[in-house]
């Protein structure tokens, strides 16, 4: 049974009696959530040793008979059983095919997997079998994230200012469980009573990856020519375990973005048009700094800076090269270029 849209929603709400269900998709948190939800629809207490069995793909490879044995076993204490297999892949497709081909067992066999493509044999098997179903767990899109946010906040009487919602929606959605945890944190932070509208400051204070924010600070400092500030943040990031290559790549991406906008301006667009065309959109708090950088950097200097960043990335990946020192030097060089560019603009 292949499920999507409304059929999926009603399936999850009231799962029919099937022999096996596959839960798969790129959103690991959502896979986990639905996997547990489906298991609980059969046995509310997942800790019940008599009604819940856990099998690993490795144990099934060693002893394929365990799948049928567990599925056919009846619970000592009565009630339907759940057999959970987590982390399956196409390697188990043949086993499940012969399992589904025979008379299906009493128990519900629940299988979880990562992101399976449309050509995956395991996914096709569950989609095509009348005894089984495949439940996809895609990443939440913007609309889904917004409804997730609203559903989490409304019961607590909380609402979001539009820019806070934008900020939040952009940072959630990669993993359903992680998103829920972030929202729980926000609810706890807002406390009972008092201010009931969440402002951007509140969201900024606790949601999101602080490393990511620091990285952006670093790149903006370097491109704005703040030599000392950029070295200070770089030191901290490296101490916290950021990888030089990752930082250099982020810097190169930023320079490319500046180059793109400059190029479009040279082709006749206004700065405003070129900025609006950027995808993903710039975070509005960064727009002014970005605008100043466009004004000061020339296309030629940007090309020179990009060259520096890319060469440094290559060098960092060469065995034996001191990656941290290279990264530090490159950030310094680019910050100095940025400083010269800013000075040029002032003159």
């Amino acid at each position, binding site marked *: 049974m292949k499920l999507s849209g409304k059929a999926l929603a009603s399936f999850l709400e009231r799962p029919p009696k099937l022999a096996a269900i596959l839960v798969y998709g790129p959103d690991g948190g959502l896979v986990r959530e639905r996997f547990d939800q489906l298991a609980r629809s059969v046995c509310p207490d997942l800790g019940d*040793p*008599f009604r819940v*069995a*856990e099998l690993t793909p490795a144990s099934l490879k060693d002893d*394929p*008979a365990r799948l*049928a*044995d567990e599925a*056919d*076993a*009846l*619970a*000592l*204490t009565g009630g339907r059983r759940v057999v959970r297999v987590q982390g399956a892949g196409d390697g188990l497709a043949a086993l499940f095919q*012969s*399992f589904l081909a*025979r008379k299906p*067992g*009493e128990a519900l066999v629940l299988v979880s997997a990562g992101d399976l493509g449309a050509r995956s044999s395991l996914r096709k098997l569950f989609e095509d079998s009348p005894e089984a179903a495949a439940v996809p767990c895609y990443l939440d899109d913007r609309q889904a994230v917004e409804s997730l946010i609203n559903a989490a906040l409304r019961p607590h009487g909380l609402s979001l200012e539009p820019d806070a919602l934008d900020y939040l929606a952009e940072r959630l959605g990669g993993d359903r469980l992680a998103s829920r945890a972030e929202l729980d944190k926000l609810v706890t932070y807002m406390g009972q009573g008092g201010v009931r509208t969440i402002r951007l400051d509140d969201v900024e204070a606790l949601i999101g990856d602080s490393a990511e924010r620091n990285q952006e600070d670093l790149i903006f400092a370097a491109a704005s020519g703040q030599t000392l500030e950029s070295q200070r943040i770089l030191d901290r990031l490296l101490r916290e375990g950021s990888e030089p290559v990752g930082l250099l790549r982020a810097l190169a991406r930023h320079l490319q973005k500046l180059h793109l906008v400059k190029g479009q301006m040279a082709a006749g667009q206004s700065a405003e048009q070129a900025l609006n065309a950027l995808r993903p959109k710039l975070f509005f708090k960064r727009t002014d700094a970005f605008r100043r950088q466009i004004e000061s950097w020339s296309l030629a200097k940007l090309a020179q800076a990009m060259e520096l960043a890319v060469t440094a990335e290559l060098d960092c990946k060469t065995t034996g090269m001191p990656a941290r020192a290279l990264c530090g030097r490159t950030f310094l060089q680019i910050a100095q270029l940025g400083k010269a560019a800013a000075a040029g603009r002032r003159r």
Partner: protein
Amino acid sequence: MKLIIERAALLKSLAHVQSVVEKRNTIPILSNVKLEAGSAGLALNATDMDLDIVETVAAEVARPGATTAPAHTLYEIVRKLPEGSQVEIDQAGDETLLTLRSGRSKFSLACLPVADFPLLSGGEMPHAFQLAAEELRALIDRTRFAISTEETRYYLNGIYLHAAKSDGIPVLRAVATDGHRLARVEVPLPEGAEGMPGVIVPRKTVAEIRKLIEETDRPVSVALSDSKIRFAFEGTVLTSKLIDGTFPDYERVIPADNDKILEVDCKAFAAAVDRVSAISSEKSRAIKLAAAKGTLVLSAQSPDSGSATEELEASYSAAAIEIGFNSRYLLDILAQIEGDAVRLALADAASPTVAREVSDGSAVYVLMPMRV
């Protein structure tokens, strides 16, 4: 520290203590055995932080002292020394080296400071009693096959030992289950065990105790608290942490009124199950039992390899019944029956079946049927 000891005595004690030491350890001191020479002889002590064993063995101590040395290496050395030889263990000025001499062999072993060796024993044990070796053996042997090996169900990874009443008579009961079958064995409650808390003794501890009782016929002293249990044999004291969890309410699993009674010769039954299950393929281990007046027919089917049936004589007079079992679990239980005949009490094809020895009611096994 300096002492002379018989190789055989040292080897026997080392064999006991080194089996507690894990093969791979992230904490170096846990790979070592603590050697302590004193007036009582040589005390050997090993631990994995959950289980601690101390064994004292007679030795001619010339100079008391203590150190720790690699357990497996020491055991291998002593094992390979010629039978009947004497071993001299000497730690002179250098505290990081231990010298072992026997005949013309000489070994120097790297030591770790004895102060670093963790102490597990100790703590108050308010409940203490004596248990005959054969009773402890029966409690372990007849239940350990049912201990779960699934790590996520940690509270099933051991034998649940507790005081209970069976038909009004106080008993000490051992129970183990893995969710598919359950074994319950009881012995008369020893003096001092009244009011003891129900405790779960971990699988590894069970295995170590079983090795130790093999070599003794004397009563074993058992002492326990909520978190630890101690078994004292002649010269050997084993202290173990208990599993911190709640054992499921197993009583609800054991049916009391199964009225279809089947009695069959145990050995012939086990052999027949074994034969018939040879046909059940890689895909399932299910086997079907059909009981009718005076006979029991075993059958198995596999879409790949064919089918098998075997008929046995049995004492059965209730309404005919067909029921499926996992052949492996059924064999495990039949292997526990020591008498000639086994009695199966059945209800229907979807309810737990109770198995017990015809001549001995102290052990009860519960087996869940399978859909066939």
